């Protein structure tokens, strides 16, 4: 395995420049949609749900939405986005003709995916703050968690991309992995109503750990599992980052 160099920043900059040219079209999905969910489920459905764990439902929901939409941002960026750059726009070929190597491209892509998650998470956090849903000053740390959330899911997504034979393959990634996680990681309801066995299993979903942390920072009430959750995120992120370096090189360098 080869390491990436600081040159990766140029790939990140390239993606940033393109994003800020197109952000008006991209931002809609990642900010408007979570707002609609917050309003529809939080205030609409929330009236019938009442209090969850001592909080109003919308206050319970908001940190979960932040965690999951950050996940979506990073995952879309490093599946469809990366695949289009790699296979359709031949962007990787252009970059590899310069002093940058495959590992620099991979690191640039993953850190960019993490940055997208950071933007999305921070955006929703501001909106939640405007609705006066944030209860604790610890919430200021949430953007950092969103970045780590993004780092992990960008690495997982790019690993999947390195194996994807066609762009349609990503349907599997989203319907079998990302979407189930969205519903079963404690975003919409507390996991403690699951049977014990399912509760333990839900920790396999990396999103569960993220929701755990964002919810803690949001409310200021931390559980003993906070450090475990953090460790899980870091472990997933570094594992898939490393694997992606190997599998992507295998795919690109022939």
């Amino acid at each position: 395995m080869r390491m990436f160099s600081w040159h990766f920043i140029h790939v990140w900059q390239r993606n940033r420049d393109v994003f800020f040219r197109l952000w008006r079209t991209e931002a809609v999905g990642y900010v408007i949609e979570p707002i609609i969910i917050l309003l529809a489920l939080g205030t609409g459905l929330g009236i019938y749900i009442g209090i969850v764990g001592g909080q109003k439902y919308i206050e319970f929901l908001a940190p979960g939405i932040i965690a999951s939409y950050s996940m979506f941002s990073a995952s879309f960026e490093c599946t469809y986005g990366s695949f289009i750059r790699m296979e359709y726009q031949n962007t990787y070929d252009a970059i590899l003709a310069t002093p940058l190597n495959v590992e620099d491209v991979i690191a640039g892509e993953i850190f960019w995916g993490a940055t997208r998650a950071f933007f999305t998470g921070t955006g929703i956090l501001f909106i939640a703050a405007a609705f006066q849903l944030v209860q604790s000053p610890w919430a200021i740390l949430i953007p950092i968690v969103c970045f780590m959330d993004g780092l992990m899911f960008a690495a997982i997504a790019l690993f999947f991309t390195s194996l994807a034979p066609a762009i349609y393959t990503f349907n599997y990634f989203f319907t079998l992995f990302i979407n189930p996680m969205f519903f079963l990681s404690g975003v919409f309801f507390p996991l403690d109503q699951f049977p014990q066995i399912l509760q333990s299993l839900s920790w396999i979903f990396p999103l569960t750990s993220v929701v755990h942390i964002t919810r803690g920072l949001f409310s200021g009430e931390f559980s003993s599992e906070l450090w475990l959750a953090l460790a899980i995120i870091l472990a997933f992120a570094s594992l898939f980052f490393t694997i992606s370096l190997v599998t992507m090189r295998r795919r690109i360098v022939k």
Partner: protein
Amino acid sequence: MAIIKVVNLTKKFKELVAVSNVSLEIAERECFGLLGPNGAGKTSLIRMITAVSPPTAGNIWVMGKDLPKYDREVKAQLGVVPQIDNFDPDLTVMRNLLTYARYFDIPGKEAYRRSLEALKLFQLEEKHNSQIRELSGGMKRRLLIARGLINQPRMLILDEPTIGLDPQAKHLVWQKLKQLKSQGVTELLCTQNMEEATLLCDRIAIMHLGKVLALDSPQQLIRRFVGDKIWEIEVTPNNKEKVLQELANLKFDFEEASNVVQAFHLDDESAKKMVSFNPRPRSATLEDVFFRLTGRLLIE
């Protein structure tokens, strides 16, 4: 000094041998052509020289540095012009150049200056604010070469730089490539266009099935493999056998190509011996050499 030295280079993809034991040297400031049919191994060879594909066996030195060990240093000195355009479609012409310059760590102001200069050289300065999709095929190709020059490379590597261009655009590209060469840029040109190869290249390697079959200047290749003139005899199914028999008896160097028999390496005096068949002379071209070496059958 050789700017590129390749020794016993081999590239295999599973069972397929794309490049087989190739050795060659490219001198500084020359225009070196790689000529060959599809699947000859040109692109594989170029991909190894530009450090994007590791060789299966053999060695490559570019500017005295061995690959793939010094790939970053080598790539910093090369200008690569790909066959398929790979611009960032969402960025303007200028932004594309600046983004590319950034990969080479060229600071912003200098990158802007060089980008303007490159756009001027290729008569694209009015397009600096255009979207990529607004450019014609010829403009895109010129922009690709302009982009390849942004790091002021000692060597430009071009893969089919005029494929699909109209004659005007093609000639403009040729003129610019000549101009760059006269300014001291070494060029490695991968092409299937014989006219282009004859016009631009100092030396040409003709490749076929992964091997270099011949390597010389265009004029020498013509002289060596077909002679300056080719005598052509039109034949019908009725007299074909007779003509072939007669040329064999005369011990001429000849070849049949569908309804024409071509005789090579003949002076006017010898050609008179077959005057009864009404042979017609014409100047030989690189294409004749190409056909003699790589055959007339479609290779797939």
